[in-house]
């Protein structure tokens, strides 16, 4: 074992280091979806891929005796899986493969993201989703509740889209709540790196407290939506191709369905206000969106996108206590 090879993480952390994307890989369809999406993002943004398999750590064992022989077998098997996955990738993509041990998949991925200074974690979201739509699997769910690094969820079927397809558009889903600033920053960064057009999507009309009078909701909603979009557009730097849309519909699901989606599109949403500062937490609006979205979704923590632990700065939102739902 222990070949005294140089560590791959030695180069990270310097300014010259490429952006890095951590892929939570499993040797099944969900893992293939994650890998395909990550490859597409890495190709478009010239990032390095860190393909990570997380194996259960011995320490979590409480009933089953640990067995060195079996652990070795698992490790060898995982390496073979990684090798197979890597063989299917375009050789031009900078990549490194890792096996990590952790008590849970999510924990291992977050630790790996910190270790490599990665700006994004990609996992397969789907677990029995219908018609290509995503239902959050337990892994993605845990990750969304504990990651301080943006998380991309690859819906099932992502593996059918070629890496060369790139990212055709970035849609930033804006709610009415604070957090939009962070989201906009992230969206701008992403569109720059991916060289993709930006679509601002206002969810305001449907992102209102439930039980509100319908007519009133529509009125304030539409007005507010335009306002938010206008403000967002003003905040954008020049040179970004931007369109804006307001989502309409009785429910979030209906609204998402009524929108048009490009094949290579990705959606950006902000983490919920319920999340701890600089940690992710998927609000119910975003959860409902995810169920309907035919395209990948990236969830951004409330503080600056891609912030590393310790580098976290301000928290975007004050302790507001409204009980309504937000995109976040």
């Amino acid at each position, binding site marked *: 074992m222990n*070949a005294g090879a140089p*560590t791959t993480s030695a180069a990270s952390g310097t300014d010259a280091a490429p952006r890095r994307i951590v892929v939570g890989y*499993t040797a*099944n369809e969900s893992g293939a979806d994650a890998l395909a999406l990550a490859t597409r993002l890495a190709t478009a943004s010239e990032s390095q891929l860190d393909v990570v398999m997380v194996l259960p750590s011995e*320490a979590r064992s*409480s*009933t089953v005796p640990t*067995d060195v022989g079996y652990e070795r077998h698992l490790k060898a098997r995982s390496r*073979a899986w990684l090798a197979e996955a890597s063989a299917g990738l375009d050789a031009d993509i900078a990549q490194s493969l*890792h096996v990590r041990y952790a008590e849970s998949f999510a924990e291992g991925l977050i630790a790996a993201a910190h270790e490599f200074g990665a700006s994004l974690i990609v996992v397969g979201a789907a677990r029995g989703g219908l018609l290509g739509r995503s239902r959050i699997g337990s892994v993605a769910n845990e990750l969304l509740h504990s990651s301080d690094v943006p998380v991309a969820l690859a819906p099932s079927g992502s593996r059918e889209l070629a890496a060369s397809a790139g990212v055709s558009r970035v849609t930033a889903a804006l709610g009415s709540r604070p957090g939009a600033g962070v989201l906009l920053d992230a969206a701008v960064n992403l569109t720059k790196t991916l060289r993709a057009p930006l679509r601002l999507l206002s969810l305001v009309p449907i992102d209102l407290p439930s039980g509100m009078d319908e007519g009133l909701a529509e009125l304030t909603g539409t007005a507010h939506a335009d306002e938010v979009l206008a403000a967002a557009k003003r905040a954008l730097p020049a040179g970004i191709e931007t369109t804006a849309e307001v989502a309409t519909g009785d429910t979030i699901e209906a609204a998402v369905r009524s929108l048009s989606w490009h094949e290579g599109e990705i959606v950006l949403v902000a983490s919920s206000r319920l999340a701890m500062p600089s940690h992710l937490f998927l609000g119910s609006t975003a959860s409902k969106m995810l169920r309907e979205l035919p395209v990948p979704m990236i969830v951004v923590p409330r503080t600056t996108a891609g912030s590393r632990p310790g580098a976290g700065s301000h928290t975007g939102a004050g302790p507001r206590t409204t009980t309504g739902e937000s995109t976040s």
Partner: protein
Amino acid sequence: MTNQPDPTSSAPLTSASAAVDASEQGGISKKGLSAGSVGLIGAIVIGISCIAPAYTLTAALGPTVSEVGVQVPAIILVGFIPMLLVALGYRELNKRMPDSGTSFTWATRAFGPWIGWMAGWGLVAATILVLSNLAGIAVDFLFLLISQVSGNPEIADIATNPFINVAVCLLFMLGATWISYRDMQTTQKLQYWLVGFQVAVLVTFSVAALVETANGNAFDATPIELSWFNPFAVDSFSAFAAGLSLSIFIFWGWDVTLTMNEETRGSDKTPGRAATITVVTIVVLYLLISVSLIAFAGVGTGEYGLGNEDIQDNVFFHLAGPILGPLAVLVSLAVLTSSASSLQSTFVSPARTLLAMGHYGALPEKFASVSPRFFTPGYATIVSAIVASVFYAVMRLLSENVLWDTITALGMMICFYYGITAFACVWFFRKVWWKSARNVIYTLLAPLIGGVILAVLFFTTLIDSMDPEYGSGSSVGGVGLVFVLGMVVLLGGVGVMLWQWRRRPAFFRGETLSRAVASE
């Protein structure tokens, strides 16, 4: 596994192995295999939970009493010796050739594919036998628990209806398979509580039996004598051998504590200590319970006598009520939780051996598949569960004393594969026996003596069990059921082996797992 080509050696993957290995050197926690491994208390808890003393004793005490009468404590003490001797050899092999196939891989290495294959078969058969027995005991206690809680004694009798019994047992098996397949683990804290509870209940049960006896409330008060601890007081060698092969079963599972944590950094003493503390706890518990129950109930054939065939296959089930009264519900709970957690750890063992057999081409490749999501030997786990379920269902319909007969047959199977493992150790290390005094003891004397004892037990049990009166007295065509069972399992193994030999000759030519000998 030990000798497969490193899949990461091809060009684009150097970074993978570099990353993997580098992180293990770095001393950063949670990355390496050994980091954050199970500690001393954790290892003891896993050890006790694997042995499952509450389950083991309720299943084995009756059959042992039927063989050796009041000398059960002596048999328990003596039975530990071959187990210890073989476990020492097991540890040496595990250190030199850690492999999930354990006995299968080691015996193949030492003696070649044919004997190796049969050792693997013996291990799988033994664990599948115990799986069905565990589930059977759990069913009995589930109904007992319900009847105790609801205050309706008739419910406990539902367990004797073979169809309901089999149906519930299959449900148990399904649950255990689900848990094992997904590798769901209880939290360590809960596991500590469960094991602590199990031990506390067993102690309470024994003390209550002694107190009742002292108060003159015993069913058949039998004064405790020193001769109970004297193995030479057993009537015949046959009885002694049969008792011994049963008592090997009661320590089975203990070897895991000896081999756990072998590679843990800075804890060279942990496995030894964990194993010692575990076995001392277990032996004390076993002695306490056997002495107190014999003192309370005697070994006669009366209603609650331990010699009564009707209660022998599950003695706690029948004695908890008379001894503990309303608190008997605690015993039911202890046995239930004990069998439940043992089911999971027991499942692992045939699954991992089947996986290794598939991996080396001794069985279809499907057996080697690992669930990509849960990292468990998924296919092998499911096959084990199906075989154990079918086995239980058939046995339940064939034999009125299914639990008893499976336990006896199980002792025989353990002697078979454990004996081969012991001899494999001796043979594998033949060139290094004389290199050090340590080697003389651990690679020659201990496993050799242990192996010989197990071999004698195996053959004695095999011959004696031809008698239709053997064990519970169930028979098929005038031959003891235990013998038939043992033969069906072993000859069935030979049949499957020959079939695999035709289908997969590479393994049997030694191409996938070659013979080897330790040379340093």
